[in-house]
């Protein structure tokens, strides 16, 4: 009997814990988008964030995308050995895999690790070194000043990163497909243009904007409520990335159902 009560108590505590974090996250988001003190300073901060979070990620996105495209091409060729399947199907498979899933999802997961940990640790460090308190004392909405430019910068630049990833993924597939000798140039190009649906790109871009919001806001939440010292900053950074990945995966499923079903 006692064990059942204890289990129910644990479930109750866990549920309350989730509601607590949900509530605090939404209150922080509301504060984040409150009227800014000075629009020109916020605009400058958005540009800075685009440079640091977006342009700074171009290299890793290009490298990951090229190798993703290459692996999908070689794996598709391996699986399409049946003579009934035309060789250009490799191009179709690479294009659709990259555009529909790999570019928006995998790149967002990688950005969650790179950008998310950077955001959580930056804001967390500012919290434990009282820099956030200093902003509040000055009469500045610290959530708006620190988090809003990161979210807006991310939402503006993430679609560009995803298009960039699509290009490099398909290019990687092409180059490595030719080098491995699994597909000809003609078949690959025919495949990537075969029955192309522009809506797939729109779908990927919608996902990329939603994921960008999650990538910036979830780690920022964990960083903002860091309490303690260097150890807690590390913990916040890890928690921020882990929760960010889980939320991205959940929204990937929801958006796929909403936009493709």
């Amino acid at each position, binding site marked *: 009997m006692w064990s059942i009560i204890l289990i129910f108590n644990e479930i109750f505590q866990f549920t309350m814990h989730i509601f607590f974090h949900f509530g605090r996250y939404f209150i922080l988001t509301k504060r984040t988008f*409150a009227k800014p*003190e*000075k629009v020109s*300073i916020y605009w400058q901060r958005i540009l800075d964030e685009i440079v640091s979070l977006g342009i700074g990620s171009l290299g890793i996105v290009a490298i990951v995308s090229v190798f993703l495209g290459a692996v999908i091409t070689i794996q598709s060729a391996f699986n399409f050995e049946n003579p009934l399947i035309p060789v250009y199907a490799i191009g179709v498979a690479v294009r659709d895999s990259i555009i529909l899933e790999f570019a928006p999802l995998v790149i967002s997961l990688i950005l969650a690790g790179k950008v998310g940990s950077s955001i959580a640790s930056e804001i967390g*460090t*500012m919290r434990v*070194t*009282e*820099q956030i*308190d*200093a902003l*509040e*004392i*000055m*009469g*500045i*909405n610290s959530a708006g000043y620190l988090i809003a430019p990161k979210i807006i910068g991310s939402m503006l630049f993430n679609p560009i990163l995803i298009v960039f990833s699509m290009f490099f993924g398909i290019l990687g597939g092409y180059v490595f497909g030719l080098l491995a000798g699994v597909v000809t140039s003609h078949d690959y190009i025919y495949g990537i243009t075969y029955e192309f649906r522009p809506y797939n790109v729109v779908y990927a871009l919608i996902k990329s904007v939603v994921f960008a919001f999650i990538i910036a806001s979830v780690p920022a939440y964990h960083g903002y409520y860091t309490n303690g010292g260097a150890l807690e900053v590390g913990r916040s950074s890890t928690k921020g990335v882990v929760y960010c990945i889980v939320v991205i995966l959940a929204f990937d499923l929801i958006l796929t159902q909403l936009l493709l079903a």
Partner: protein
Amino acid sequence: MIIGVSGSGKTTLLKCMVGLIDPDAGDVLFNGRNFYDLDFNAKKEIRKEIGMLFQGGALFDSQTVEENVVFPISMFTNLTIAEKKDRANFCLKRVNLENVNNLYPSELSGGMKKRVAIARAIAVQPKYLFCDEPNSGLDPLTSLVIDNLIKEITEEYNITTVVITHDMNSVMEIGDHIMFIYKGEKWWEGNRTEILKTDNKEVCDFVYATKFMRDLKTKF
């Protein structure tokens, strides 16, 4: 001045006073208005009248010394870039810091960080200045410089300054009105002459904790 042993609640009290922590009980009145009854925007307006010197300085790591001092000016005034720089240079000069404008906080010593933090705090001409252990981690000579700076600025700008400290040198140097906190409660209140004469056990234990102060008491 608010004094007391470590863990007595000095910093918590200060954070309640400036609105960084919600108190469990009691009010914080600014010009008769309870800070915690005000809405977010009204609190922001009051905070513009407050300058604060944090224990570690709390300078923005990503900004240079000049940018740190210019920051509050940029946020709340419409001065031109040249005017903002002039104001920042004036404040930096006031705290005896020159030719450090382009350095980052990580390149400064503890005392310099505190002075930059004071310059940033006075940049928007506050009515109240709160200092959280301004001497912690500083050598006695630099502590004296910071103490004198706080005293001079308080008189020069005609502001109310609240200093949290457990440094008796500081208390004797700049303390006009002293409050001793013990276990989260106000335990004793008076001036720097009275604190040397009090027979309150906890205050005496604190004041005469060092051999120097005990010798001083025996001497006089």
